[in-house]
């Protein structure tokens, strides 16, 4: 029985990474201890991760721990989604439009979301960012669509 869910699942995560390291790393030449190949160190790390993960998970059967807090998906999806979309479109549509989209979309992740306030803040921030990054720091970002 799982008594310490946080440790148990953390252990599984580590085991998964360890197995992935061993499986993918099996394509790399191991070499010998004196002449380590590219697969040598990853294999050590993979084995270590599996051992540590297993110890953690097994220990979780005995230790008592609090349950894992529920994962509220909205903040994660909206926040990271807005960032990814920003990254994908900024080159083509320029800094101003992508900034406005990021701010409005990311603001919606909060339970206190106020559309008007978000829109105003988006416009101000777009102007500030153009001022700091394009004019001030002279970074190579287009301001408007087609400029990048």
């Amino acid at each position, binding site marked *: 029985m799982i008594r310490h869910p946080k440790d148990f699942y953390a252990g599984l995560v580590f085991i998964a990474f360890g197995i992935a390291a061993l499986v993918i790393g099996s394509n790399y030449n191991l070499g010998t201890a004196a002449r380590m190949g590219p697969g040598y160190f990853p294999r050590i790390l993979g084995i270590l991760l599996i051992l*540590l993960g297993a110890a953690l998970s097994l220990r979780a059967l005995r230790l008592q721990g609090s349950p894992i807090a529920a994962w509220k998906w909205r903040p994660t999806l909206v926040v990271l989604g807005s960032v990814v979309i920003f990254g994908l479109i900024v080159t083509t549509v320029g800094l101003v439009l992508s900034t406005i989209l990021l701010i409005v979309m990311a603001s919606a992740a909060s339970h206190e979301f106020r559309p008007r306030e978000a829109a105003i803040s988006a416009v101000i921030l777009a102007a500030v960012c153009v001022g700091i990054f394009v004019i001030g720091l002279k970074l190579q970002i287009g301001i408007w669509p087609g400029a990048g």
Partner: protein
Amino acid sequence: MELFDHLALGFGVALTPINLLYALIGSLLGTLIGVLPGIGPVATIAMLLPTTYALQPVSALIMLAGIYYGAQYGGSTTSILLNMPGETSSAVTCLDGYQMARQGQAGAALATAALGSFFAGCIATVFVATVAVPLSELALKFGPAEYFSLMVLGLIGAVVLAHGSLLKAIAMIVLGLLLGIVGTDVNSGVARFAFGIPELTDGIGVVSVAMGLFGFAEIITNLESTEKRELLTSKVTGLWLTKEQFKQAWPAVLRGTGLGSILGLLPGGGAMLASFGSYALEKKVAKDPSRFGKGAIQGVAGPESANNAGAQTSFIPLLTLGIPENAVMALMVGAMTIHNIQPGPQVMTSNPSLFWGLVTSMWVGNLMLVVLNLPMIGMWIKLLQVPYRVLYPAILLFCSIGVYTISNASFDVIQTATFGALGVLFVKLECEPAPLLLGFVLGPMMEENLRRALLLSRGDPTVFLTRPLSLAMLLAAVGLVLLIALPNIRKKREEAFQEEQ
């Protein structure tokens, strides 16, 4: 005297107008970050790292260092005025600082914090300058075996002194090491764990890892909690101390500075450990410990001096040994690598103006903080009234632009978002991200030193045990683990037994 030559060289660099400007920008930004809750120095430094690419290396490091110690100042302001630590390192300042503010002594508390920090900053600068030379001379004698063992000790030490489960922290280090070696292997040219993605052959960017795990994950977890921040601003009057208060505060400042300087040296140390340690010490030496938590000025003076001293001396292991001891220092490794500086003992000899310029800039930055911050407190408080729902999208925006401008590539942004998701998962599973970041920056160095050590010993792994310095460091690492593990096991057993009854 040699020390003065070094300091003179350093001031020659630190006092040039351009470096003064970057020290100012860094310490102001740091204060701002320290004041604002929900974004720490790690995320900020990660955010600003790309904008320093175009700078001279020394200016870049001066600015980034300024952010770190500036954050200690800013954090204390909100602790005292709002009972809300902007930084974890100023959490203990809340205990007595806020009580002082409630008793109408906010000005005295703020002045104590600022002057204590400045004094600590002065002493710590000299301390860094004195200790750095012998330490880096020692480190120059290290061979690959010693270096490998030193990294093991550094990594283990860093997690032993941090809070949370030891086993998890060690697993996080190993995962970090693994992520650190993603990319082209320097010896064989094989692209490891790159999944055919061309960007990954250059390795994962330290900015993406740090910003995702520390910045994005923090914002997301803040958004999940629905509790509201309350704002109560007390009036700040008379930013000075009475004679009586001064008398009470200065021994605490001295103790805090001493303790903080030493704790800052230890792996895993730095500002946070220093302030907590100092508070405990002050409580222990006080004639009347019951006054603590009720507005004892020593409870502000000690920890505030200690965290600033610790923030500065935590640069010593980085600058002399090339070993970062906390997440901020791990990012400094990233910053140095970007400018083609391999952190380690050779920096002092091959790049003395950078080394001493950085050390002396800490003192300059501290002076600026005292002079500028006390009058600016009103402005910082205003800033706190900006609601979080407006603040976090802006932080997110600056992070995204920062990552994007590393190489104007969508890939970096997506990679950072991936680490953000991983960061939220780690928060849910109570896995501290700092050890992962340490492992991440040390991964390539550790592999290289392991490879060289085993090459020299013709594949004999006992080389780590037969060289005395290496053996001593490994034994120290094992000792640290046992020290922590034993009482831990005992305690956990007791808990388990209680369950069964």
